[in-house]
Every structure is written in C-alpha cells, then in structure tokens.
C-alpha cells in the first residue's frame, strides 16, 4: 500500500545539520552532519542506540531547538520555530489536564467558527475511538486513551507533518500493538508525513516506509533502509525477520541473548 516517495520533491530537507551543547564549559557534539530528505506522505522511523540524540534530532526538526549549524527546510521554507503546521507528539503525555477530551482536541482550533470546530472535534474523537469520552478529563483516561487523545489533538489542526517521539513507549505491549495499527489506519486515511523516533526496532519495521539508523553519540546517519513491505506486515514473515536482523546488525547488537 505504501509507495516510495519521489525523491525529487522532498517535503522535509535537512542539510549538514550539526548541534553542539555547552556542558561544564566543554563543547559536546550531539548531532553531526545530518543530511536527510523525507517525501510528502512518507512514514520515516528513526532508530538508534539509547542516548544517541535521536529525540534531540526530532526536537530540532520540530523547531524547539535551534541547530548550531545547517539548515532545515519544509516545502523549501526554512524552519524557524515550532509551527501548528508541524505537530509534535511527545513521549510523556502532553495532553492538557485542565481540559476535557473535546477541549484538548479543540485547543488548536480556536480560530475556527464554532460549528466547524465542533464538527472537527467530533470527527477526530471518532477517528481515534474516544466516542463517549468527549467530556472526560485526562485523569479519567487510561494511558492508551491519553496517547490517542494526543494524536487526535495533533491531527485536528490538520498538520502536514507529525513528529512522534517514542509515542507509545509508556504503554504495555498489547496497547502498543493496537496503537500502531490505529496509527497506520489513520496515516493511510490522512496521508501525513510522519517522522517517528523509537528505540523499538520492531516498531520501526512495522511502521516505516524507511528506517534511518543513527550511530551512537555524536549521532550521524549510519544507514538508511527501505522497508518495501506492504501493510499489514506479517511479523513472522522471513523478509520481516531479515529486516529486523539487518537493523540489529547495523546497530551492532549481538544476536544471542
């Protein structure tokens, strides 16, 4: 179902991006010479060893952290800061605890006329399966429901790009599988460009059109792998296992436990 993007017109283009932090008077390099380009509607997963800076890279792409050098462009326009056209989904729940489910989804829609806003809220409540919880507050929801709420809030403003930072890391195994299916279902319908950071290799192989493997710190792109399997992907298929093994090898993880 997923088609490879045409590399000639990338949605997101990153060229020679570097990031250094000043820590205890020492300059520490976090990201080194990152080049990447992501097509419109493409689903790209970024994996890497823990602490390598993959989450930091996503924060830089999202405009929360200015890079030390290099350029990030979306639709040939430089990224200067966070923007409602590109929504970030955080690892910890970032839903607003003082707003109801409907209030959270409507948070980014205050410019719309009332009727249209209500319709939009209702549509996304349905899309993520939170019907009946419109007036519930986040603390009344389970972890998985909160994460779906955050995805709904992100989608409701109709962004071109979704940045997802280990969005399902805090959930249990079964909920995580369900959430991945839901995310793919929504992605097939809405065709957003998705950049998802994860430390979970299975997640990357299950979701991505393409997987970028980062090196350990300072992070650079170690390799890029085209997944090329249609959804739904069979996690016991030989090609799936082969891809998974390939990524483990690229990361230098020993196969025996």
């Amino acid at each position, binding site marked *: 179902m997923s088609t490879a993007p045409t590399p000639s017109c990338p949605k997101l283009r990153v060229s020679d991006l570097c990031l250094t932090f000043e820590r205890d008077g020492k300059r520490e390099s976090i990201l080194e010479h990152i080049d990447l380009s992501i097509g419109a509607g493409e689903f790209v997963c970024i994996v890497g060893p823990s602490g390598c800076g993959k989450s930091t890279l996503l924060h830089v792409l999202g405009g929360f952290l200015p890079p030390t050098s290099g350029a990030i462009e979306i639709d040939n326009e430089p990224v200067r800061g*966070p923007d409602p056209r590109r929504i970030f989904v955080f690892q910890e729940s970032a839903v607003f605890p*003082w707003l109801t489910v409907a209030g959270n989804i409507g948070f980014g829609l205050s410019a719309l006329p009332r009727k249209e806003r209500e319709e939009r809220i209702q549509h996304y409540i349905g899309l993520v399966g939170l019907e009946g919880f419109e007036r519930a*507050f986040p603390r009344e929801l389970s972890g998985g429901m909160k994460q779906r709420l955050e995805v709904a809030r992100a989608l409701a403003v109709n962004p071109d790009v979704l940045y997802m930072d280990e969005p399902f890391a805090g959930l249990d195994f079964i909920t995580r599988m369900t959430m991945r299916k839901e995310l793919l279902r929504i992605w097939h319908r809405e065709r957003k460009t998705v950049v998802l950071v994860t430390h979970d290799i299975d997640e990357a192989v299950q979701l991505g059109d393409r997987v970028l493997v980062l090196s350990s710190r300072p992070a650079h792109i170690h390799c890029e792998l085209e997944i090329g399997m249609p959804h739904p992907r069979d996690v016991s298929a030989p090609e799936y296992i082969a891809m998974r093994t390939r990524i483990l090898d690229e990361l230098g993880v020993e196969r025996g436990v």
Partner: protein
Amino acid sequence: MKRAEAIFWPALLCAALLLAWQLATLHTPVVPSPVRVLRGFGELVRKRILLSYIASSLWRVAKGYLAAVCLGIPAGAALGYHPALRQSANFTIQMLRPISPLAWMPMAVVWFGVGDATPVFLIFIGAFFPILLWTAEGVRNVPNVLVLAGRNFCSSNVAVIFRVMIPAAFPKILTGLRAALGIAWIVVVAAEMIAVDSGLGYLIIDSRNAGQRYDLVIAGMLLIGAIGLTLDLGLQSAERTKFLSWGFSHEPAD
C-alpha cells in the same frame, strides 16, 4: 455513623467551650457571657446596621482583592516565565513582603486620605504578595512538555502564557488565592478600626469606644470568624471542580 461522628465531636467541643465561657463569666461584669453576646447580636440585627456593615467590609475586600488578583497573576506569571526578571525582582519582593500591610497605614492615609481607598489599598498590599509568589512558583513548575505543546499550537508567547502556563499553574495559584483572601479578611477589620466609619472593624472599635459594649465587640468578632470561614470554604470548594481537581490530591473529607 462516620458522618454523625464528624458532626458530633466538633459540636461537643464548641458546646464545652461555650459552657466554660458561661461559667467563667458568671461573676464578672466586664466580660460578657455567651448569652449576653447573643442578646447583643440580636440588638445589632434589630438596629439594621449589621447587614450594611458586613456589606461594606465585603465590598472593600472585593475591591482590594480583585486589584491584587488582576495585578498579581500577570506579574507572577511574568516572574515565573522569565528567570532574569525573577532574579532582578526577587530582592525587592522579599524585602517588601514581610512588611505588615498595617505598617502602610500612615502612608496610605497620606496618599488616599480618610475613606474607603485606604483600607482597600491595605487589603491590596496584603493580598498581592501571596498571589504574586504562588503564581510565580506555579508557572515556574509547569511541566516542560506542556509548554512545548503550547508553543507548538499557539502562535504567540502571550497565548502560551494565558492558554497554557496560567491554567497549568492554577492549582498553585489557587493556593495563593486562598492565602490572600484570608489575609485580606484580617486586614480589612484592622484597617476599618482607623480610617472609616462603617464595616465590621468599625463596629468593634465603635462598640468599645461608645459605652464599652463588650457584648457587641465579641458578637462582631464571632461574626468575622464565621464570614472568614465561609469565604475560605467557598474557595476551597473550587479545588473540587473538575477543571482543577487534577492538581490536588484529595484525602477523604475530614
């Protein structure tokens, strides 16, 4: 059974105190007994001054308190948001804060004269600092992900402050609001003893000065306590609304 007990023991304590008070005042003419205080209270009601005195005290508190809220919350939010601003202002705030609002009285009379504006100003001074400091504390401790999410969806910093920082800090702000209201209610009574000729503070000082009516003094004191309690319960109930209850951990009601 639990509920009956929750009423029974406090009631018993009150009754015991009243009885002790009644017994202690049997043979002294100066300190009035509870029965005389009750009669004095009835007299105040009959003279029809009580409601207007309560109203003028509450009205002064409302004005000073609202001014403190309107200035204290935005100023506190700014302090919480900007570390540099917080550092610059901290010394001045910590210097002014321990000054009792009543110490401002002579200067307030010079600036505002004798009349309503002086107690209102003193109430403002008393209520401003807790609101300012609790708001700053609340805004400073808003979880970073909420701020980032707010910056992602909002187009301006002002929108982030009003739509994310202040709501997220509101449980702390409410703590400041409660503390401030308690102080405001204490300050109004003291201020009314000097600058004005209405209100519950005036009732107390006037009852003493015009004929040593200590029964009316004590009736006024008890009334002040009861109204203060009601005001606090009002704000406390806000903690239980769904908009805010996420920020408080509730023990079973005690």
